[in-house]
């Protein structure tokens, strides 16, 4: 269970326009590259002072590699981070304003309270 790392992926991709496009076009390849090269980078430390222990579970990696935001919700990824990035990825494919956001809600409609815990 590495909710923190899921959130770190969503956060670092969302803030980088090139990574947003790369993740949209090649989700599985981007996740593999990111886990190998970026997952252990401490964001405010030089590259050499990296962590040594962070990795995804198979379930988490597959959820990211398949753009499966419903699975990310179930895994306890931070809902705001997931929503923000996935709007950037897919809102452009819908003609009506907020159509993607409403489809997103519908795909989560089977959930009732309490939602999965987002604590890290």
């Amino acid at each position, binding site marked *: 269970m590495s909710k923190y790392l899921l959130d770190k992926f969503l956060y670092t991709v969302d803030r980088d326009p090139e990574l947003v496009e790369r993740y949209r076009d090649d989700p599985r390849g981007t996740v593999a590259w990111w886990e190998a090269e970026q997952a252990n980078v401490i964001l405010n430390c030089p590259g050499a002072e990296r962590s040594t222990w962070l990795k995804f579970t198979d379930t988490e990696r597959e959820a990211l590699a398949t753009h499966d935001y419903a699975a990310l919700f179930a895994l306890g990824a931070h809902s705001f981070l997931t929503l923000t990035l996935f709007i*950037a990825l897919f809102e452009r494919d819908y003609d009506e304003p907020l159509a993607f956001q409403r489809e997103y809600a519908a795909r989560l409609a089977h959930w009732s309270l309490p939602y999965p815990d987002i604590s890290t």
Partner: protein
Amino acid sequence: MATVAAVIASTHHPFYYRASTATGDDRPPFADEWVAKIGAFRETLTRARPDVLVMVGSDHFHQLWLDNMPQFLIGKAPFYDANFYNEDREFGLPRMFLKGQEDLSAYLLREGIDAGFDLAFSNELRIDHSITCPLITLRPEADLPIVPIYTNIFAPPMPQPRRFVELGRTIRQLVEAWPGDQRVAIIGTGHLSLELGGPRQFGPHGPDPEFDRKAVGWIASGDLESALAQVSLDSLWEPGNATHGFMDFMLMMGVAGENAKADYTDSLDLFHTMEAYFTWYPDGVDAP
């Protein structure tokens, strides 16, 4: 001593800028009513003739991150750049550049720490839409120096609601004791019921209109007793999964004071959320 010229609490809706500037077919049907309400709300700050703005908001995972997350943070810098790439991307928000009131930041940090809040600080802070949205609505010239105060309403574990209220009370006391003759407006933004990234998001109204109705009543009447009795970190998940932003409203109720009735109250039922606007004048205000 400084004067608290106005206390202002509101929601911050990142879509306002785009809705209010859109024209023709792009202009949403609710834009004109929204712009009119914001114009009236803006006048409540203008009438207070502020020199300095203390701005309470919450970084939305822009600069502050889970490897190093402060609960309460005050910016102490001469300048602040503002708004981020993803806020331009999603909301069309412009980049902004703001002056800082660095001596008031230093004073609030020193005195706030001594008053029992172990405040974090930042000497290089990029401000996000939790603070730029109220500038766009209330002071679009963005010509006054600011002191940004960030709270954690996003990443569990968060401080208790009572702690937000206590920090608000302390900010009020400290600003009133700040040596000098400046007129300080204390402005904070949060949310009523709100769902982001969950099944109740982007509905025709906020996810919990009953919570919104109660919350507007608490704020407008300064009913901290009821708010504190009925709001907890656990209960705030129920009206919507992003409703912890209501704790910034509770902080502002602490600034305004127990049972302080707002001098100005307005709201607007929009898709997705209810907007709400409140102004208090602790020392009165000149007639318009």
